[in-house]
């Protein structure tokens, strides 16, 4: 209900420059972007491990909000289910089982921090430079409407552009994981003489 976008009635340019109108949808986008980036930064810098997990959660929800903003609702919902309902809960459980409440992570060496910051900054600058120098061209292909029905047919389609084979490969992986779980969970037979 919160994050919805006003109709986009502007002309489509890849970098929507030129229009400096502050519409509600633009404000919401910048808000979501700020939430995502700030909480991601906090997640990697905070020294309280549980807070790091919570900041990670906010970053992931922020990304889901950006998907909502792009009107890709199905992908946004899947993002929340998979990352929030699955992975963050998994991380929190591993924190519960391995860490002490109220303890802080050890402080990192300054040299390592500087090196990491420098490396990531250089990488960021490199990618940004590349982005600025090279333009993206539209393919002109028709986009598939990201509705649930279209995603479903595409995922199981066997004709051109269908993703049946990768889908099956991934399901094999899942099956292997399930069988592995059962094997691990099975009780070993009591040793009878």
């Amino acid at each position, binding site marked *: 209900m919160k994050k919805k976008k006003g109709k986009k009635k*502007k002309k*489509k*340019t*890849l*970098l*929507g*420059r030129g*229009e*400096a*109108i*502050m*519409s509600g949808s*633009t*404000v919401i*986008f*910048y808000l979501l*972007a700020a939430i*995502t*980036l700030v909480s*991601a*930064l906090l*997640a*990697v*810098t905070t020294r309280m*491990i549980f807070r*790091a997990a919570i900041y*990670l959660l906010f*970053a*992931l929800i922020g*990304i889901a909000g*950006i998907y909502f903003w*792009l009107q*890709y609702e199905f992908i946004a919902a899947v*993002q929340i289910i998979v*990352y929030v309902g699955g992975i963050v809960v998994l*991380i929190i459980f*591993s*924190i519960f089982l*391995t*860490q002490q409440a109220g303890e802080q*992570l050890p402080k*990192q060496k300054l040299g390592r*921090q500087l*090196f*990491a910051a420098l490396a*990531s*900054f250089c*990488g*960021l600058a490199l*990618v*940004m430079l590349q*982005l600025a120098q090279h333009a*993206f*061209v*539209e*393919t002109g*292909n*028709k*986009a598939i*409407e990201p509705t649930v029905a279209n995603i479903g047919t595409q995922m199981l389609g066997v004709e051109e552009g269908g993703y049946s084979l990768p889908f099956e490969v991934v399901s094999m992986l899942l099956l292997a994981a399930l069988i592995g779980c059962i094997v691990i969970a099975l009780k070993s037979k009591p040793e009878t003489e």
Partner: protein
Amino acid sequence: MIEPGLYHMLFISTTLFFIGVYGFFTRRNLVTMLMSVELILNSVNLNFIAFNKYLWYDNE
């Protein structure tokens, strides 16, 4: 403020990626390293979605 477009998405995802890389390098704890990897994966996802949205542009 500029109307957001593809480059905004790419900026977010790139920044997210390198935040994740920074975290991966500085952290010495397996769980926190996993968190950084999650950030990196998510930035890639965001890239996919952004390209799908803005490069295959369907004019209504």
